[in-house]
């Protein structure tokens, strides 16, 4: 058998307390699209970081065209021919498309930059990918999809051998996705290899040749897409069936707790209407950028609505800031735990009591006993594992950090609890605890909104599902009627047939 273009052998990555990757092996041949499959938290992103030189592996070897390679930086991995299209913002918004493509390796002639030849090359690259962007336009004026295309062009500009795409379709319209597929096929036709990270099956069957499945940081299987069934791959991916994973208590919904009418924020989302009852878990599903988190931000008073109404328990309310939202009994466990949810350098007690600190204080003077009591009550309720409530949050594992954030919001005694991606990036054990806990909250008549990008989570936990696409609600599906296909279809707006209207491509 011929030597693969890229071979990973026994790659492990340990962080204190966590084994993010355990003995993962992978082979990719030139001219093929290799899908890297796994649920959120399976270790895909860590593997991408290792391949692209962002993180060093703890163990294992990487071979490129049979030669062992090691990188100390993303730049070194690019030099040997591996380019990752990162999900993070790795562009220069104030600079031109041309410059974004050539930053770090500007073409020079006798030491001086040749703008003419760079622009010409950019035009060629963009044309070869059939992308109609002016090389001179500033990147800050481009859409998300266009930026992604520029990233691909950038990878090609350095004669890359392997392009890694990390969930590239998650924020694209159907037409943009079609275009991306075309580009991917063109890349492999040119003899390059593409590592395509995804957890969407239609996508994998559409584009990939071979696959590797990761689960909980470990290699669980590989094969050819053509000769594998969806069932086989799902079993590898999940390792258990849906109902085992989600313990959901049946709750008879109470009166309407929250009513949202035609909520609109210009340029972000439009005409959002829904009702949420006590004890109900309402799932919000959609692709990245569909506007779900943005709706929640308005609900919680972080951003302002341009139109529409919000009613709590039957009374219309104006929510101008988070403090007001809290007074109305709304709590938001935000999407980004480290940036928005927790204060890493402060201890667990201080984190948990921050939103209610003025209630705990007497004449504004802090009362330590009251704080300790809150920390003890909610910390043990959520089974936070720590060296004590005085331990700084950055000494905890991701899952326990998330528990602290949830505890912090429960301590506000909310009537409506919004959870935005509550299990993103936490280990499977903690995930199950969080799910069980959400279910218990609903049983205690708290109205819950669950925003998630994980289809199984949405289907497993929600009483009904609202699906958003490009800032609008495209479907409302009850638990009984919800199926993965239905929800995904609405999320990609395949039925509506107007998917690509905003794409200038």
């Amino acid at each position, binding site marked *: 058998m011929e030597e693969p273009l890229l071979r990973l052998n026994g790659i492990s990555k340990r962080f204190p307390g966590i084994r993010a990757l355990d003995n993962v092996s992978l082979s990719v041949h030139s001219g093929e699209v290799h899908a890297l499959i796994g649920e959120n938290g399976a270790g895909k992103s860590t593997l991408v970081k290792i391949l692209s030189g*962002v993180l060093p592996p703890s163990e294992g070897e990487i071979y490129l065209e049979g030669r062992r390679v090691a990188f100390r*930086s*993303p*730049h*070194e991995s*690019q*030099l040997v021919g591996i380019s990752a299209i*990162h999900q*993070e*913002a*790795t*562009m*220069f*918004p*104030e*600079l031109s498309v041309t*410059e974004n493509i050539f*930053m*770090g*390796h*500007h073409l*020079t002639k006798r*030491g*001086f*930059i040749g*703008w003419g030849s760079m622009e010409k090359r950019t035009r060629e690259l963009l044309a070869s990918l059939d992308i109609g962007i002016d090389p001179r336009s500033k990147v*800050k*004026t481009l*859409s998300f999809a266009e930026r992604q295309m520029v990233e691909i062009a950038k990878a090609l500009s350095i004669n890359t051998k392997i392009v890694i795409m990390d969930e590239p379709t998650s924020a694209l319209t159907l037409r943009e996705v079609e275009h991306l597929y075309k580009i991917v096929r063109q890349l492999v036709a040119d003899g390059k290899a593409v590592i395509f990270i995804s957890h969407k099956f239609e996508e994998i069957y559409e584009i990939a040749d071979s696959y590797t499945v990761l689960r909980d940081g470990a290699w669980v299987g590989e094969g050819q897409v053509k000769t594998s069934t969806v069932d086989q791959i799902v079993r590898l991916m999940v390792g258990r069936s849906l109902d085992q994973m989600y313990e959901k208590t049946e709750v008879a919904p109470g009166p309407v707790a929250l009513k949202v009418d035609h909520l609109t924020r*210009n*340029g*972000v989302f*439009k005409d959002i209407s829904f009702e949420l009852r006590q004890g109900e878990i309402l799932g919000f599903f959609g692709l990245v950028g569909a506007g779900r988190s943005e709706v929640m931000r308005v609900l919680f008073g972080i951003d302002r609505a341009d139109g529409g109404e919000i009613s709590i328990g039957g009374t219309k309310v104006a929510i101008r800031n988070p403090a007001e939202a809290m007074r109305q009994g709304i709590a938001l466990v935000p999407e980004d735990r480290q940036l928005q949810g927790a204060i890493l350098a402060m201890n667990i007690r201080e984190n948990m009591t921050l939103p209610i600190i003025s209630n705990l204080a007497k004449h504004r003077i802090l009362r330590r006993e009251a704080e300790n009591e809150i920390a003890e009550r909610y910390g043990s309720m959520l089974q936070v594992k720590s060296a004590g409530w005085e331990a700084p949050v950055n000494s905890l594992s991701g899952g326990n950090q998330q528990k602290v954030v949830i505890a912090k919001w429960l301590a506000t005694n909310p009537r409506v609890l919004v959870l935005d991606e509550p299990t993103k990036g936490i280990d499977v054990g903690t995930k199950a605890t969080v799910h069980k806990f959400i279910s218990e909250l609903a049983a205690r008549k708290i109205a819950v909104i669950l925003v998630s990008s994980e289809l199984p989570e949405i289907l497993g936990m929600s009483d009904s599902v609202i699906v958003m696409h*490009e*800032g609008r609600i495209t479907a409302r599906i009850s638990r009984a009627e919800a199926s993965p296909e239905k929800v995904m279809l609405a999320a990609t707006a395949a039925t509506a047939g107007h998917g690509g209207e*905003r794409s200038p491509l």
Partner: protein
Amino acid sequence: MKDLFKRRETSLFVIILILAAAVGFRAHDFVTPGNFLFIFKDSSILFVVSIGQFLVILTGGIDLSVASIMGFTGMSVALLDKVNPNMPLVVIILAAMAIGFVLGSFNGLLVSALNIPPIIATLGTLSIYRGFVIVLSGGTWVSADQMAAPFRDFPQASFLGLSNMICIAIVVFAVFAVFLHLTRKGRDIYGIGGNMLASQYVGIDVKKTNFMVFALSGILSGLAGYLWVAFYASAANDSAAGLELQTVAACVVGGVSILGGYGTIAGVLLGSIFIGVVKNALSMIRISPFWQVAIQGFVILLAIVLNTVLDRRAQASMLKRRVL
């Protein structure tokens, strides 16, 4: 064409013209070629230092020590010249730049190797370098008659009919325009100011670039330090004190983003001329020179607020155009 009018440089240029016309209306002496020549000469010192400040601000930092570096190098070369009146001017100028380089490098080390925020590091060296001036001079000053003729006359002399000061400004402009636009190191500066993480990903050495901008700022301040003492024909302990704020003003008025990553050398040139025109206009229409610092502060605030508001408005309209 439409693009030309939208650019900040163009509007700043128009503002300068209007300002000059308005002042000229009140004071006819203002619009004489002689006076304009004086303004350009005077502004060229500010421009040279401001380029250094510009490089630092582009990376997202700030250099508050530029005026103290000028003071120290100015005093050093004035003493050097006083002791060795026969020393060739070229050597003097090179010495000024070398001293500036050393002081700037120290700033660069503090920021890049020790991770000290630029504002704090250079607030410290602002005092340190100014203190060095007194240590060096023993509290005295060097006056015009203690300076050798070539040393003192250089700023007044001209080359091919163009004032030496303006020649130097043109050379600095040309060199740094090429550096910023046509070399990788120059583009790296824009890169790390625009997106530090992304710069690291594409292999730009952020620490080295940070060091480089402070070192360059030091070299330019050194050069300007000589020009200052020669142009004003005296090296005092407080030479150029407070000029650091004028350089910040020249940059922000010229449209340079205080957050880094955006700005043009033409903008800095116009910003420097703007400050020079204001300074000169005050004396022409007989407003107390004490107004200068207040106006400079006002202009800094106004420019920063305007830059921020305009930028945000542009972003908001872009967002609206994109979705829905």
